[in-house]
């Protein structure tokens, strides 16, 4: 924590040194929200000069165009309704998943040059993608790294439950928190981190949480929960 603090301070000094800032722009990128980590060590004021930019998933129309371009690149052909099916299945339209599935589809067509890629092929591609542990494992490891043991066990159980039941209610979250001796505020903080880092959302109903990505849900259910 001490190191983290001094690192943050050092960066701030650099950013605010006119000699540096005239020539250098600092851009930090990360999938774990920097703000939530920093606020935990009570150092949020050290980064209050940073402007945060959220990289959101693509809107449907852009995702469509992106998929078409990717397909051209790898020389496979997908009908319009098959692309729509693909995007529906991905639901949370971040570039990574689209790329991952297009890559799996390319492998399918390479294995069978006669293949007509259809909805079934999409399902097969998803199952194949889920077999690559390395693509997803970071979702789990980064939680292990950034939370204490009890906290990790708490979020893991929450994510396990959602992967099984599709949703979890906020009162259920509080119940699990008690199990790990976390109080309501601590639990809420951790849930906020999960939301911020793209695991889950409560967009439709403030009291109900679900995965952003059905693909991550399936992977978690297969590889972590069971």
């Amino acid at each position, binding site marked *: 924590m001490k190191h983290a603090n001094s690192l943050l301070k050092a960066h701030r000094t650099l950013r605010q040194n006119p000699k540096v800032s005239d020539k250098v722009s600092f851009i930090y990128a990360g999938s774990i929200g920097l703000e939530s980590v920093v606020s935990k060590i009570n150092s949020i004021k050290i980064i209050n000069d940073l402007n945060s930019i959220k990289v959101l998933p693509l809107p449907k129309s852009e995702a469509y165009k992106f998929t078409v371009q990717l397909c051209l690149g790898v020389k496979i052909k997908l009908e319009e309704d098959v692309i729509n099916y693909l995007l529906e299945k991905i639901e949370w339209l971040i570039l990574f998943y689209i790329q991952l599935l297009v890559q799996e589809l390319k492998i399918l067509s390479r294995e069978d040059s006669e293949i007509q890629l259809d909805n079934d092929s999409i399902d097969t591609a998803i199952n194949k993608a889920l077999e690559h542990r390395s693509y997803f494992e970071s979702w789990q490891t980064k939680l292990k790294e950034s939370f204490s043991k009890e906290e990790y066990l708490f979020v893991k159980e929450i994510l396990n439950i959602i992967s099984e039941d599709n949703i979890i209610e*906020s*009162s*259920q979250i*509080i*119940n699990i928190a*008690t*199990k790990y001796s976390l109080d309501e*505020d601590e639990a809420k903080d951790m849930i906020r981190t999960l939301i911020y880092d793209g695991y889950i959302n409560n967009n439709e109903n403030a009291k109900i949480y679900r995965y952003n990505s059905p693909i991550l849900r399936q992977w978690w259910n297969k590889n972590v929960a069971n």
Partner: protein
Amino acid sequence: MLQTSYARFKYTPDEMGEDQFLERFVVREELFNDIFEDIKSSNDSNTNQHYIIIGQRGQGKTTLLRKLQIEVKNDKELSKFLLPVKFAEEQYQIRSLCRLWEEVAEYLQTIYEDEFSTILDDMEEHFDDEDYDLQCFSYLESVIKAKGKKLILLIDNVDELIGKLNEKEQRRLREILISSTTFRIVGGSTKMLEHHHDYSKAFYEYFKIIKLKSLNAKESKEFLLSIARDEQKEQIKNVIENSPARIETLRRITGGVPRTLVMLFDIFLDENGNAFDDLLKILDEATPLYKHRMDDLPPALQEIVHTIAINWDGMLTKEIVKKTRIESKLISAQLKKLEKYEIVESESIGKNKIYKIKERFFNIWYLMRFGRKKDRKRVEWLVRFLEAWCTDKELEERAVKFIGKIKEGELKPHYIYNMAEALSYAGLDLDIDISLKKEAKNFLESINSQYANELSSTDAEILINAIQATDNGTPNDGLNILIKSDRNSFIINTQISNYCLKVGKFILAEKYIKKILEKHKMEVNTDQYIVYYLAIAKGLVRAKQMISDSIDDVNNLIQASVSLWNEEFSLSYEKFIEHLDRKNHLKLEDNEDFYLTMLISKGQHYQAKKFLEMPEYQLKERYKPIWYALMTLMQDEFPHEIKKMGSELSESVDEVLKEIEIYKEKYAI
């Protein structure tokens, strides 16, 4: 002031003047029309349809028969050939079929003297004939036919008459019913007795059965209006328009039986106790019948009937099981029998059935005869009626007038006793209650009436007992005394709700707070209001607001419960711990079962486990059923804990589990 009330005629509609009678025949018109139309449209070629009108005592069988008698007589066409013959209600003298025909002949000779001046005498000439038994009907029929007439026999208690005939006679009567076009029988019967006459069941097939059902809400209103004297009509109209619930209560108490309805209504209007005398008279008359009804039942059924009758209100099967200690497997078969005998009736409430005595009048009779002394149930029917029909103020005015009448020495002891008890149970001002009981006791003692010792305690005495019990024990002891007393006055209801709040019985408190607000129309304090909202699971926002606006500290357990309801878990836990600490400190006796049950219903299993297991509060020991209900829900994780449960707990645990399910919906936000 003497009143000419309808009461005089409620048992014997036949004695009422014809015009008055017709004017008051406002219900059952459709049934009457059905029968009357059939009579009018009959012709010579077909045999007649015979009828039996079946209904409980007081449902209006005799009235319907009289209506037929009058209308037939008044109908221009019918009266030319159709002669109504209506016997008195009891026909002890008719013991054989021949006697029936002789009675008919005698009736004709007396009533229709001009046409049948010698009919009985003619028949008597054949008395000594060997085949008189077979021939007496033919003699009668031939005379009637010769005059071009037909008869309509209106026979009350026709089942009793049929029951007296031997098998041969029954067969003969059946023949006559099938073949003769001269006679039509319209009988009345209380179906209650049908099971005594299984052998005559086949008979009923020759009759069309008309069942008199209980009056519905609309009919009850029309009926009450029709029986009211002119000066009362406005008052009743007013009640019907402004407080229809009162009529409905009256209907429920009486089971919608017209006679019982009139009777109660009369007792209410008549302040001199005359109507009450009438009631006792009719109860006395009914005694042999009702006693017979009870004596005919096997002991197990008697016990069940006794249990249900003493309770007055409907009972769930499990409540009957608990009271009678008859196995629940056996009970349902027994209850089915009692339903078949039409002694009890059931009403389905969700999956459960509620059983009550079908004939409410029988229930009143039972309670007045066998109700425990100094028990509210003995006068429950009257209490209910007074509660429904009087505001607190009206009750008190009535009581004050009543005290005056006692002093004047005008009233009879049974009326004094019953009315004093009913008024007192319905809830009076503390002082009025004291002087009512005092005057009643003094008077009853002065005439050496046994009722003097049967008067129950005053509200004041009960309150003092409760306060002393609380001082020597806990608020729960005081609470038990008050609840057992079955009183309903403002002061007792307030004290009960206070004790409930003190010991955390929120759900129970609601009933009494509701009475304070709705019945007594009095204000309650903040704690009581909040508990009221909590118990009915409505008004969460308002409850929250009241807590934050309150100048005085709202009870911690109440606050914890409201926060839990609102799913502010941390706040709720904080308040709950404060409550437990305070309680430990002051050595109070509280009930946390409501809170713990709601906690589990909110899915907070781990927190509930944590609270229950905290050694300093010993909740796990106190709330074993809640603990095992929780362990049932958590058995995947703690499979061994549930095995420690004693089998005697399983029923209570199931109840907690059911409650949890109910709370899940009730307290969802």
